[in-house]
């Protein structure tokens, strides 16, 4: 088949099973868009309102579908606008392929119009990147891009294609990539480490599991649940591990980390064995490393060898894909239960309920709380929805109180903490799981960072439900200013526009509530709608999120107020 490089790009995408691309056209990628036009019956292109939106949509899509998200942009500013999403995907291990147009090869380095060194710029935040300057390179590079993005610990790949390589013709044939000699996607699992791990597990009196996104990325939810249930070990989650085990599971003891639950944080420093499964000991999880789980033996189940002993030293590192390692571990562990130890978790949970949760969910003060809004969403979705969050107070509250019955239902920006993530990510999440209800819960700050994607929702009639928890503040920063900067609220108060009018201008049904008696009905109407829907919930301006581990403090220093 003698075809152009641009057509080859489309055929490669089809070969990789891609039927959906997010992007924004421009000069240097026009030949590819011209081919997209010809192939539109096989490949759906969603026109975003900003290239950053395209990356977050691709991320949301990847997170709910488990497939590789694809984003496209032109050279120069189009390419640089992708960078935040790429960095987010890198730190949160999201499989994504970004394709950027580039000036013609003979113009490289001439400061041509819309030329930017996107390879140089994206290098530190991609798993791999490559600049194609000859059309003949396209099939092999595209195959590698998808293989690298989805295999092992997933991540973003950027392919930059010069305009001449898009125009030039060559003889096309496609072969999927099955291996690269310099790249080991997953380390070989060894029986000895599993046996050693099982010995520690079987001997432990006060064991505790902390699981992360590795369980979800590895599609290991069943194996994980089986291990938890057989060993009877209380299991806590990192923010990206959320929904890997149903919220209501009796051994699910809540979230670890800065705004995590009281019990699992305190007991991290009391357990005798810490099983870390598919998580990377982020500083927001561990607090001060000097005082983190020093009394415990640590077993680290991890696919990326560079993560082992990076932050926390492991007594045993079980390297490999956790779907395999957990399955092979299961017959080696004895059936067990730890009722007394579990009761300690329950005791702390009761304390937290009395001091924090009860007031959050059943407030008596006039103003609405973020917690009761999330609880209303729970009531009307039955915990069956995909919940997408942005970054800040609303994110912590939502992740603390949202209920989940299915895995891959929590989409949030964890590692990078990207404000503006949620609205576009919700679009992608909905398209990755069209049969599911998708509710984006967003703060008034982050919402306005990518608010223009309402245009994408309107044009594509993508039925996402948008809840803005509006406190007219950049709430998390304000909370820190209150606690650590003597209430000097430097540039955190926001004078906000009429969000309902903005949504309505995009022909999206919208309403706003600020009274308790209106909340439930409004949420019910939103969930009942089959169209995109916007709901503003005006909440208390100066509420704080607790519990909280102050930055740099020990998990033992977790504060309830």
């Amino acid at each position: 088949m003698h075809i152009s490089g641009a057509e080859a790009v489309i055929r490669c995408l089809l070969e990789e099973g891609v039927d959906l691309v997010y992007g924004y056209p421009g000069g240097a990628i026009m030949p590819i868009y011209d081919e997209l036009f010809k192939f539109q019956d096989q490949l759906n292109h969603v026109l975003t309102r900003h290239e950053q939106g395209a990356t977050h949509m691709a991320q949301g899509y990847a997170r709910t579908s488990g497939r590789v998200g694809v984003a496209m942009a032109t050279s120069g500013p189009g390419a640089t606008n992708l960078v935040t999403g790429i960095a987010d995907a890198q730190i949160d291990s999201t499989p994504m392929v970004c394709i950027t147009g580039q000036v013609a090869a003979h113009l490289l380095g001439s400061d041509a119009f819309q030329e930017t060194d996107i390879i140089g710029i994206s290098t530190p935040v991609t798993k791999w990147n490559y600049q194609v300057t000859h059309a003949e390179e396209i099939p092999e590079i595209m195959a590698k891009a998808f293989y690298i993005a989805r295999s092992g610990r997933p991540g973003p790949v950027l392919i930059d294609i010069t305009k001449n390589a898009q125009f030039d013709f060559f003889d096309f044939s496609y072969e999927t990539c099955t291996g690269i000699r310099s790249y080991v996607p997953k380390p070989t699992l060894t029986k000895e480490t599993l046996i050693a791990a099982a010995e520690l597990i079987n001997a432990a009196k006060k064991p505790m599991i902390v699981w992360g996104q590795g369980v979800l990325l590895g599609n290991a939810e069943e194996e994980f649940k089986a291990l938890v249930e057989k060993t009877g070990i209380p299991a806590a989650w990192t923010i990206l591990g959320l929904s890997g085990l149903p919220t209501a599971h009796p051994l699910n003891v809540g979230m670890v980390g800065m705004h995590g639950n009281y019990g699992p944080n305190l007991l991290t420093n009391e357990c005798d064995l810490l099983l870390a499964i598919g998580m990377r000991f982020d500083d927001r999880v561990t607090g001060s490393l000097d005082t983190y789980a020093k009394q415990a033996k640590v077993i680290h189940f991890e696919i990326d060898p560079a993560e082992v002993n990076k932050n926390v030293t492991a007594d045993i590192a079980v390297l490999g894909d956790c779907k395999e390692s957990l399955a092979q571990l299961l017959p080696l562990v004895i059936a067990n239960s730890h009722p007394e130890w579990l009761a300690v978790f329950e005791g702390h949970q009761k304390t937290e309920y009395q001091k924090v949760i009860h007031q959050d969910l059943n407030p008596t003060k006039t103003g609405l709380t973020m917690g009761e809004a999330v609880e209303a969403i729970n009531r009307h979705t039955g915990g069956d929805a995909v919940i997408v969050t942005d970054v800040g107070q609303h994110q912590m509250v939502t992740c603390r109180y949202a209920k989940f019955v299915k895995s891959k239902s929590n989409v949030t920006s964890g590692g990078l903490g990207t404000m503006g993530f949620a609205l576009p990510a919700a679009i992608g999440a909905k398209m990755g799981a069209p049969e599911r209800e998708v509710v984006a819960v967003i703060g008034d700050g982050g919402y306005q960072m990518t608010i223009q994607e309402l245009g994408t929702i309107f044009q594509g009639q993508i039925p996402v439900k948008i809840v803005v928890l509006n406190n007219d503040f950049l709430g998390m920063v304000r909370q820190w200013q209150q606690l650590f900067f003597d209430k000097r609220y430097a540039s955190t108060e926001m004078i906000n526009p009429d969000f309902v009018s903005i949504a309505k201008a995009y022909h999206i049904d919208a309403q706003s509530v600020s009274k308790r008696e209106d909340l439930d009905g409004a949420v019910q109407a939103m969930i009942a709608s089959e169209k995109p829907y916007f709901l503003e919930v005006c909440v208390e301006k100066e509420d704080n999120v607790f519990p909280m581990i102050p930055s740099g403090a020990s998990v033992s220093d977790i504060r309830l107020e």
Partner: protein
Amino acid sequence: MEEKQLYTISIYSENNIGLLNRISAIFLKRHINIESFSTSPSEIKNVFRFVIVVQMTQTKIKKIVGQIEKQVDVIKAFYHTDEETIFQESALYKVKSSALFEERHIQNVIKESHANIVTVSPEFFVIEKTGFRHETEKLYNDLAPYGLLQFVRSGRISVTKSKMGISEILNTFKKNK
């Protein structure tokens, strides 16, 4: 406090544009200064070798090498102490030719240092010295009083005493393909 020492990092990699940037970015991100850096073909066809010298603790070097090895185009990365490697640096010294005749002592300096004279012209001559850092430095100090027109020293090149096993890795990959 764990002590810092010199480590030589050896990287076997594909010869891809951009990998140099990717590797240096790992150091940049962690605010680590590189003492010396050299690249060349390796003993295996189409496999490139980087030799990087850095000063840091063992805990840190392990993590850095892990990050380097994680890169898709890196076949394998190692770190070694000075005792575990054979290493050399080369230096070139450009001196005025008149110094050779006006300052008799300079001839003894050259002789004692076992340096080679690479080229001599009416205006200048160039000396080459390969060896350890302290040897090239000593010659620098000895020649400096006579006026060095130019001085340059290469990055460290090194081979390890232990086996690297790169061909085995590549052969295993070929077999499994």
